């Protein structure tokens, strides 16, 4: 009898759990994606890029003419920075308004479809809502795009800004040490490679080089990568997120947990 009761109880509990999860756990359906490469092929973007390329080519000519007269590396660097700045200003002038309109179009479509996050197409391989055509239609329409009044609903897809995490002092130190190590080893092994006579000897040197670099990566970077991933997972769990992606892949919405991960790493 006791066993039968236990089985019945377990069955009831299981049914409750199943019903509860069915009630709480609706599938993620508020994720949209945009094929940014397709948007970039719209004639306005193609024209803008053409204009920018032509401007860059003019600047290159001017830079090459002026760089002949500089005497020191510092002057050369200064000149390069100056031209870089000019190019960036032009880019802002030509492409800036287009990107702004594209962002508005994405936000408008996202709001209409009640999406909590819009990501780049390359990270979604199945499912999700493809809003590329809708975004393009809004973008190319002659009307002004009204920004949506409501902010996107809270998303269960989080993101981290990798560039910010790279700025954490211990990550920065490890990256810099790794770069230095690799540069030095590259020169050492390149010299050995130049002395090598047979292809098998070259192959052996290459393998040694790869192993040396990989070992150092394991020693310097892997612990930090593991630590970062584990910190990110911990934050994601705390915030009830399902997945966390790189900020570079998020176009609109999503939950930014960069600062939380940064704090976890600083501990």
């Amino acid at each position, binding site marked *: 009898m006791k066993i039968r009761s236990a089985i019945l109880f377990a069955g009831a509990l299981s049914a409750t759990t199943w019903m509860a999860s069915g009630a709480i756990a609706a599938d993620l359906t508020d994720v949209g994606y945009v094929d940014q490469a397709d948007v970039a092929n719209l004639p306005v973007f193609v024209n803008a890029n053409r204009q920018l390329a032509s401007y860059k080519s003019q600047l290159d000519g001017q830079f090459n003419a002026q760089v002949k007269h500089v005497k020191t590396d510092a002057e050369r660097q200064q000149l390069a920075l100056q031209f870089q700045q000019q190019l960036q200003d032009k880019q802002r002038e030509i492409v800036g308004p287009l990107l702004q309109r594209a962002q508005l179009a994405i936000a408008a479509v996202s709001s209409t479809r009640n999406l909590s996050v819009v990501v780049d197409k390359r990270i979604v391989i*199945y499912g999700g809502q493809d809003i590329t055509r809708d975004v393009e239609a809004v973008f190319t329409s002659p009307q002004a795009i009204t920004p949506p009044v409501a902010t996107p609903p809270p998303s269960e897809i989080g993101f981290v800004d990798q560039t910010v995490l790279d700025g954490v002092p211990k990550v920065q130190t490890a990256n810099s040490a790794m770069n230095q190590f690799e540069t030095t080893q590259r020169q050492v092994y390149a010299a050995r490679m130049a002395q090598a006579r047979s292809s098998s000897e070259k192959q052996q040197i290459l393998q040694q080089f790869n192993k040396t670099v990989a070992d150092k990566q394991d020693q310097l970077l892997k612990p930090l990568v593991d630590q970062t991933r584990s910190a990110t997972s911990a934050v994601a769990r705390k915030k009830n997120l399902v997945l966390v992606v790189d900020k570079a892949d998020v176009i609109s919405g999503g939950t930014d947990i960069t600062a939380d991960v940064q704090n976890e790493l600083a501990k």
Partner: protein
Amino acid sequence: MSSPNSAGRLARLAAVLCAGATLATGGCAPNVHSSAIRGTGYIRLDDVVKHHPLYAQLTQLDDAIAAINLQVVAPQVPLSAKQITAQVAVLNGQLRAAQDRANKILAQKQRDYARREQQAVSAALAAAGVRGSGASAAQQMSGASAQQAAQAEQAANADLMAYQQNVIAQDNAASSSVAKQLQTQAAQKYRAKAEQLQQNETDLSLRLTQQDAATRLAVKMKLNNLALEPDARKQAQAQLAALAAKESAALGAQRNADEATLRAYRADLDRQTGGAIRSQVGAITAQTRVKLEERRDQVGSQLRSLGPPSLPANLPPNVQSRIAAIHKQFISQFQADASKTVAEYNDTKTDLDRQFAALHGADVGATGAAAKELQALQKRRSDLYQQIVAQAERDARRVAKDQGFSIVFVNVWAAAGGYDLTSQVIKDIESQHE
């Protein structure tokens, strides 16, 4: 009431049920709509790529790219500007020493030949019975003209040697440039052919596995059924082995054919390149020979214009012609001997020129060729990677659809929920290629 037997039956039943589910979905599928998964899946693309059968080829390409990158760094390593200056000074010293040595040898040879000519003339006069003033005058005349001729020869030969050096250097440079160019062209053609054949093999490999994918999957599913009769299992395993053997045989046959094609192509290219090099270098050498012969003829005629030693008129005609013959013979012997010295000098100079060129980065061209090769390899790598990723994504989509996922991501940064489909996709890819 539960008993060990009934528990065993339940376990078997569970296994059979699970096998049934396997047939339907390719494995004991997770509850994709649970609160932890929420219909969300993800795959770790890097891990899937590492398990793809074409990953070995991808690694080979990576190694080839890394090798070129490593080699390209090499020229920057060994020498500083100061070291190059010091080595140039050493080479210049060696070149000057070689020139001095060649000049000294030539001067010594001129003196030797003049002395031996004089001795030969004396002997000829004595043999002809010419004595006294005639002989003495003839000897004096011969000695004086030999000295003049020697001086003239010395000047003319120095001139000829300088000219020879110049022309031979031009010849060497032109020949080596032509040979290098033709060899580079041949190497490029060979590489292109090899790449094309390798691409064909890769395509065939993929085509074969895709052709048999459905059959293989069906057989694998059958094998996953724990309740399958031993005979049927054997038959299914044999069927899998036959598929693998068929694909392997087709690929092997293609590889053998490609290797033969490549060998024949190499032989053909070598023949063509060798012929072209011989023909073009032959033309250059012929032109050089003509130039040198013209110059030698000019020098010869200049020397001849000095004429054979003017001999006293009272010498019998046969003695005069004998002495003229001796003079001619010594001049031609000297010229032949001097040419050897000049040739030796030119060899030394060519070697030193090569060392100069290497010091001044004459292998910059190799960097250019390496850059082209690098570009080609990177393109092949990118194409192959895309091919692998495309297949991984196709498989992931199929698995996701079969198991009822709502959305599947790739390359997520971290996961607090969702379902990791990586191992399933890997298994799927591996089963298609086994």
